[in-house]
């Protein structure tokens, strides 16, 4: 049985439909990534699953419990790392953890033991008496993750956990998240960072305009939507129509950004004489998750 299950989840804010019918099944112990541009509905989806946002239509289950019926029990199993820092500025690092542990009814002696172990794990033990405003951005993020682990959650939910972090901190966080996964913690991660998605996630769902538009392991997604090779090319404006017509005829997918054309080659597309067609080839490369992302969610800026 999946540890997280969503059935036709819909979220409406008045006229606006933020999530348009999402089905999801996440297995215990896996790291599942939600990948999508700003406003795709990732955060709203996660908020419904974690019982902090009412579900307009459909159902969500965590460990077999309906999140609408048993929100407290569901939330007791989850640790949430928000994107926006919401630590208590009036408390020290340690006190933040102790107060938070109390929300889960963890007895104070046990809370202290856990807090110290977790601070150690995130290399924050030396700062236990520091005020929040004395911490760097990276320390705050580590503390947020630390806080989410106090209830020893079965599921860790992370909203863009490394955005804005320096590379050292980012790698420390990734390493710790992998350790947690080895210990059996299910992870639900939203991200826009392709490297992060590739490094951490066992499976990914690409979310676009409130729907899941692709689902699979990173390798599967690349194989399915990235093709064999990406060619970056330019074409003179007088040859443009002819070239695009040729690509269309061969059923090749491409994207045009300014004067650059990105051609997603696949096996047997018969595209051999690109330069004779009038294409000025800038480069060829192996497709990445980023190409998949841009193909599925478009290259246009999303405001």
């Amino acid at each position, binding site marked *: 049985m999946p540890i997280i299950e969503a059935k036709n989840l819909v979220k409406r*804010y008045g006229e606006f439909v933020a999530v348009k019918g999402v089905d999801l099944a996440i297995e215990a112990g896996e790291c599942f990534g939600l990948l999508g541009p700003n406003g795709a509905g990732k955060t709203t989806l996660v908020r419904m699953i*974690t019982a*902090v*946002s*009412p579900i307009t239509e459909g159902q969500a289950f965590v460990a077999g419990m309906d999140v609408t019926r048993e*929100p*407290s*029990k569901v*939330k*007791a199993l*989850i640790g*949430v790392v*928000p994107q*926006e*820092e*919401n*630590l*208590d*500025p*009036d*408390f020290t690092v340690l*006190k933040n953890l102790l*107060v*938070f542990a*109390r*929300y*889960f*009814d963890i007895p104070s002696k046990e809370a202290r033991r856990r807090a110290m172990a977790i601070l150690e794990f995130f290399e924050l033990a030396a700062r236990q008496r520091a005020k929040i405003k004395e911490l760097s951005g990276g320390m705050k993020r580590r503390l947020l993750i630390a806080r989410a682990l106090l*209830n020893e959650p079965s599921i860790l939910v992370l909203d863009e956990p490394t955005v804005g972090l320096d590379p050292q901190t980012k790698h420390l966080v990734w390493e710790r998240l992998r350790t947690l996964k080895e210990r059996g913690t299910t992870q639900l991660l939203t991200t826009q960072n392709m490297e992060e998605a590739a490094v951490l996630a066992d499976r990914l769902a690409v979310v676009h305009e409130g729907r899941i538009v692709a689902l699979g392991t990173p390798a599967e997604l690349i194989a399915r939507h990235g093709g064999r090779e990406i060619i970056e090319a330019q074409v003179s404006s007088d040859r443009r129509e002819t070239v695009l017509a040729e690509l269309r005829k061969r059923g090749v997918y491409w994207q045009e950004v300014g004067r650059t054309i990105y051609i997603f080659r696949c096996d047997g597309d018969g595209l051999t004489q690109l330069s004779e067609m009038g294409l000025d080839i800038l480069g060829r490369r192996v497709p990445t998750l980023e190409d998949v992302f841009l193909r599925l969610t478009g290259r246009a800026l999303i405001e």
Partner: protein
Amino acid sequence: MMWLSPRALRVWQRNRDVFFALGKSEMPGLIIEPVLVLLSMGLGLGAYVGDIGGRDYMEFIAPGIIAAYGMFAATFECTYGSFVRLDYQKTFDAIISTPLGVGDIVTGEILWGATRALLTTTTVLAMAAAFGLVHSPMAILALPVGVLSGLMFASISLTFTAVAPGITTFNYFFTLFITPMFYFSGVFFPLSSFNETVRTLSWIAPLTPVARLMRAVVEGKLEWRLIGSMAEIIGVTLVFFSLAQLLMKKRLFR
């Protein structure tokens, strides 16, 4: 009922811990200001007023000031204090990701607001006693009256906080609601000194029954008709407690 879950206590404990962490900065509002008002009005204005109904002016206003500063304590806590937790610090967002719900937050905030009212009531009562303005042992009942009043003003305030778009909106709340009550609810003058219109408004103001009750217990003159004042406070509390629950849920759980 979910609203009265023991989890609300966790929110109360969090606020208490912050209060003790910040301790010293709370002192001015807690002691200094009410004493300043009591002395300046009592001695200054008192010299011209003489006495009211056979008691010294300072004795007349002392229970009113106890009532008013209890109101201020709960009100500040559940407007500016709660709003900072709601909007700036996102404390409530952090809390609803735990087993606690919005209902627990609202109840915990209101209980904490009432606790602040109790603390202020206690210190101002002690000050008044130190100045020799308290004669009846019944005055100890000022503390439960302070709690009731605190619950009411915390509920009213949190209702307003739940719909406040920004922190500057509280200027309206204080200028149009709290400050007028301070002057027109029988704290400084008997309601009978006002004309009919003002008196009608005073009767509606929720500080009026609190000032009346406070005066009665501090002077040790309990009467049956005070039950009406108590019922009024409890009624207003229930209405605004429910409103605060509904509106805060609408704001946070969306």
